[in-house]
């Protein structure tokens, strides 16, 4: 196979199949990636939504309820102490009653011992004595001492219960004091209560931290952190831990309702925050969770989605390519088959060309042989004063011929048209000329009509065409002139015979039956025409190929009349010149039309010694 074919093959294959494969693969990549990306984004969005609406809220609520539970219990305990009749009576009696005093001291002592309170106390409004869990007076509150202000404020408030948060930075602890008025709130006898360390709660806070980097604060109304998962934060201001924007969000959050918001932490990371009220302590819980941690598992989702996308891409592209190759296979096979067929056609074309060349050469050679049978120019010059030969077989060789022979002072001049063109026609001319020669060599040839009669019989015999039926039916048209002692005789069939002299141009009609054909009887007779030879008589003989040739505007046959008109128009000009005129005219008439038949025009002007008259 030659390389241009390979290239075309490849380009056809690339051009269509690979374009489809690449396009489809691109589509697969696009859609799979899009689905992967979208499912990841939806998961992410859903995770964050759930975090904000439910998880954060749940965390905050459970922490807050822990804190409130502790405070509620402390309030209950404090109330039990304050409402204890022994305490009331003892305080009302100015802490004088020994027996009651013992009971009270036992109660105060049992509280921190039996429960997880740090201290318990009773402060008298009358004596200002501060009785601690140790059963001793550890202080006498004074209105002038700022540390004791809480006592006078609570007494004056008329509120039965009061919760005070007191952060002690030195002890890194936060204390919640629950103060309950002893006696009626409008006439309080004093204050009883418990102190509660939130350090324990703070340790629990650390356990609440769900994820790395999350923070948990209990913040008072003034922004002071009272409780933190990190002890270090206790007592500091919230503003130290938040960005200005986050602080602003915090400040906008209502004290009595939960609020979720997003903010950046000090290092610029995204945070989800929730503010949650702790009503009993007049404080708020603030939970801060880094987004990176809550959505951290999204990273692995992202990773596995990517892996799934890539895997499905590889698989689908592999299968698609495999299938498309299988699909393309018949196409490739068709191309290959086409190439094989083309190569076969090429081989056959070559074989035909070879055969054609052989035949053309063969016919060219046959043409030389056939020409050699025709009389040479030299011979014609010897016989005639002037002559014209136009011999044009349609297919290299053909059935037309002209022939001249001198026998015993008689010039035999013939023009013939055998049946068939090409090789069959040429074979017939050889046979006909040979038979004519044979007849000429016999002695008793009185006239051309006699010759035609004999030729008919001989040809029929030679070709086995004596019956009407048979495999071949060949013969010829022939015009034959005898020139003898100034006389001219003519016999003919099928040949256009015309004589031009001083009287003009006239046609001599031949006989009907062709020579040698099956349907021509063996005893067929041909009429004899005596033609007077005048000065400058010219004899024209043409085969029917000339009048039958089509051409002109209507592509009709030329016709005998037109042929004779041409010949007449050439006047008395030399025959060599007339030949040129004729050649020009017939070519112009035919134009693009194919030659229909072999064409022969033969004309001659007899020598003076052929005629009787002087020249």
């Amino acid at each position: 196979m030659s390389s241009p074919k390979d290239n075309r093959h490849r380009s056809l294959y690339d051009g269509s199949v690979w374009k489809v494969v690449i396009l489809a693969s691109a589509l697969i990549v696009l859609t799979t990636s899009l689905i992967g990306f979208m499912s990841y984004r939806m998961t992410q969005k859903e995770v964050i939504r759930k975090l904000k609406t439910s998880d954060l809220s749940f965390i905050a609520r459970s922490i807050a309820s822990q804190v409130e539970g502790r405070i509620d219990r402390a309030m209950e305990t404090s109330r039990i102490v304050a409402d204890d009749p022994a305490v009331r009576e003892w305080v009302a009696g100015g802490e004088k009653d020994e027996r009651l005093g013992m009971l009270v001291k036992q109660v105060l002592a049992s509280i921190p011992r039996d429960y997880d309170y740090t201290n318990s106390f009773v402060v008298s409004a009358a004596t200002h004595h501060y009785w601690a869990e140790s059963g001793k007076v550890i202080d006498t509150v004074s209105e002038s001492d700022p540390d004791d202000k809480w006592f006078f404020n609570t007494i004056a408030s008329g509120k039965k219960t009061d919760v005070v948060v007191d952060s002690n930075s030195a002890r890194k602890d936060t204390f919640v004091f629950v103060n309950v008025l002893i006696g009626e709130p409008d006439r309080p006898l004093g204050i009883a209560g418990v102190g509660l360390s939130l350090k324990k709660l703070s340790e629990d806070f650390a356990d609440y931290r769900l994820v790395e980097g999350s923070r948990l604060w209990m913040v008072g109304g003034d922004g002071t952190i009272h409780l933190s998962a990190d002890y270090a934060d206790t007592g500091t201001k919230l503003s130290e831990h938040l960005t200005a924007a986050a602080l602003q969000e915090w400040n906008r959050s209502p004290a009595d309702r939960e609020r979720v918001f997003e903010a950046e932490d000090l290092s610029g990371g995204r945070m989800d925050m929730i503010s949650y009220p702790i009503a009993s302590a007049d404080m708020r819980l603030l939970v801060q969770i880094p987004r990176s941690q809550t959505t951290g598992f999204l990273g692995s989702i992202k990773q596995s989605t990517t892996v799934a996308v890539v895997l499905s891409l590889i698989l689908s592209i592999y299968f698609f390519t495999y299938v498309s190759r299988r699909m393309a296979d018949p196409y490739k096979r068709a191309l290959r088959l086409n190439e094989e067929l083309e190569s076969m056609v090429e081989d056959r074309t070559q074989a035909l060309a070879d055969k054609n060349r052989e035949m053309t050469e063969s016919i060219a050679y046959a043409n030389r042989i056939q020409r050699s049978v025709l009389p040479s120019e030299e011979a014609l010059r010897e016989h005639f004063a002037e002559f014209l030969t136009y011999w044009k077989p349609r297919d290299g060789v053909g059935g037309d011929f002209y022939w001249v022979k001198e026998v015993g002072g008689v010039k035999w001049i013939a023009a013939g048209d055998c049946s068939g063109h090409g090789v069959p026609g040429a074979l017939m001319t050889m046979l006909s000329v040979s038979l004519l020669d044979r007849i000429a060599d016999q002695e008793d040839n009185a006239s051309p009509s006699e010759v035609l009669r004999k030729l008919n019989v001989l040809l029929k015999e030679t070709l086995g065409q004596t019956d009407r039926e048979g495999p071949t039916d060949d013969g010829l048209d022939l015009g034959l002139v005898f020139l003898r002692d100034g006389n001219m005789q003519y016999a003919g069939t099928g040949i256009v015979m015309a004589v031009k002299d001083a009287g003009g141009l006239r046609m001599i009609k031949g006989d009907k039956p062709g020579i040698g054909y099956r349907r021509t009887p063996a005893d067929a007779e041909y009429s004899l025409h005596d033609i007077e030879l005048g000065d400058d008589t010219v004899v024209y003989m043409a085969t029917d190929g000339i009048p039958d040739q089509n051409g002109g505007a209507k592509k009709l046959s030329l016709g005998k009349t037109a042929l004779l008109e041409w010949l007449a128009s050439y006047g008395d000009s030399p025959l060599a010149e007339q030949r040129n005129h004729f050649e020009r005219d017939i070519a112009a008439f035919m134009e693009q039309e194919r030659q229909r038949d072999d064409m022969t025009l033969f004309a001659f002007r007899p020598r003076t010694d052929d005629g009787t008259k002087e020249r």
Partner: protein
Amino acid sequence: MGSIRHIQIEGTRSTPEVRFDPERHILAIRGQSYPENAFAFYEPLLKWLDEYLAELTAETTVEIELQLPYINTTSTKCFLMFLEKLDGAFKEGKRVSVRWLYDEENESELECAEEFKEDLVLPFEIVPKAAE
């Protein structure tokens, strides 16, 4: 006549169009005829004609319409055979007639028709196409 098939051959550059209708009894040949092997073309037509004429009754009128601007020598021989068969049928008393249409400008065509007519006895009408 049911057993005789219709013949319908389209014309080519060198062969004429042939329409033989055995039901309407119209046989038409139109166009140039100069095939390389005229016998091969005309033999089936001649064979068909033999069958057709053999079944033809004396009551049926057959019209043969010819229009042949150019026929070569071998085709001429085939046509002669064709026309002789018709002539034979006519001589047997069958109603067969030929109508030859020719182009008035085509001298050879008229000559050819006239030559054919000379040998035949059946009604042979030569009509110029313009006069039709």
